[in-house]
């Protein structure tokens, strides 16, 4: 068992391919075969047309920063080691927005509109989380 204390996603049957993907270094985005919508976060029903005919596409792994903030205080003890935390919402060319942390950079390096790329960090045997870093 891992001694990792921070929250980890619970893998659902419909999100399993996403987490299988991150383990292999792939960022997979859910895609509705009925209406062509790209969907994030993964779910069992398309929020645009309610179809359950959903598949997966491979994202380019590139994105741009829509907005960000830098947390200096006020986290649970288990996150203190990560401060300052750069929380960012990034827009993928596939038309979805993701919540992530920017890594391998300093707060002063970050700007709205900057280009970032995915980087994967293996957390436990089952979970590899996607993060993003400046290109």
């Amino acid at each position, binding site marked *: 068992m891992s001694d990792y204390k921070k929250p980890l996603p619970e893998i659902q049957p419909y999100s399993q391919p996403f987490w299988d993907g991150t383990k292999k270094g792939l960022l997979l985005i859910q895609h509705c075969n009925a209406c062509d919508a790209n969907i994030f976060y993964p779910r069992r029903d398309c929020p645009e047309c309610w179809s359950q005919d959903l598949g997966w596409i491979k994202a380019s792994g590139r994105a741009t920063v829509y907005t960000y*903030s830098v*947390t*200096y205080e006020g986290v649970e003890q288990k996150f203190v080691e990560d401060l300052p*935390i750069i929380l960012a919402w990034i827009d993928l060319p596939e038309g979805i927005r993701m919540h992530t942390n920017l890594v391998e950079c300093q*707060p002063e390096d970050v700007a709205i509109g900057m280009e970032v790329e995915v980087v994967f960090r293996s957390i436990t045997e089952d979970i590899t989380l996607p993060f993003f870093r400046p290109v």
Partner: protein
Amino acid sequence: MDLSNVAIVGSFETDLGVVTDRGPMALGVQATLGAIADAGLQASAIDGLITCNSLVTPVMYHAEATAEYAGLTPGHCLSVGTGGGTTYTALRYAAAAIQTGLATTVVVSMADSMRSFMTRDRAMAVQSSSGHPLFEQPYGPTVPAYYALIARAHMDTYGTTEAQFAEAMVSSRAWAHLNPTAQYRERVTVDDVLASKPIADPLKLLDCSIVSDGGAAVVLTTLERARDLPHAPIVLKGYGEGHHYEHISQAKDLTKSAAADSGKAALAGAGIEPADIQLAQLYDCFSPALLIQLEDLGFCEKGTGGEFLASGATRPGGNLPVNTHGGMLSHCHPGNPGAIFGLTEAIRQYRGEAKERQLAHLEHTLLHAQGGIMSSHATVVLGRAN
């Protein structure tokens, strides 16, 4: 639904700020019984009780538990959970219950003790739980960090400055300075806010609401019954809600919120315009929330909330007094009940009991609150009974 023959007839605030001798349930009961007495009623007159669950000591059936503790046996109990928006959602359910004959006299009561009855680490865990459990919480989000995302997006889109956000606390403290029940009463300047420690950049400590203990309750009944009670009835002129998402990450545009829908519906119900409002009691959990509400509720153009705050309009003597009690930035913010003090202060203003804060002329008050991170919006317009 026309709610105008429902009246608010009783109001009570518990001790506020740092209250260590009573937990949330005891505070809630104190608020409930105080409001019933203020209305000039007996416990037997209460046939509806609506409450908000405590974050500190949640119970399974909160309204029923409150009734039991207080020795009430109402025919209708409801615990409402729309986060910070609960006060006004609950007010509407109370009014609708009276309107439809489900109940005749309803207490809306809420209290919590985030300051004295919850450890810091537990408080941090509770607030980070607003993030999506699978795709956000693993990244260590906090509530200030979410509002900081919103602030940064507003700065980028409209050129709003950190100094303009700082005006929210300047205005709040200018009012709180006049209110003996406010937890923080020292006036501050824009420079004080800018120099306060960074919490989630671009937000600093003094862009954030405080953490408190306290509770309050109000009593509603039919306007007809209200005529026989001690206080001049205050009526609900309009009501609106707006819900565009639960997780703020699902917002299409961070600089606009469902407050626009909620406010529009409430003002239309009252048949008035934003210019007809003399008092706005808004949800100032963080400075950007207040700024965006001023825009979305129509008090200023989209993108000009920063200039509006900096103009002094919301301060004592301004054209649109906002949060005359000091709001959650300075007065009291015990958790989800935070917005109820906007309501009890408005009632005090209608009664002419706000002392140094008293507004000379008050016909229409707009109350607004939101739950989640700009997620679940509710707006009420109050007025005097004809």
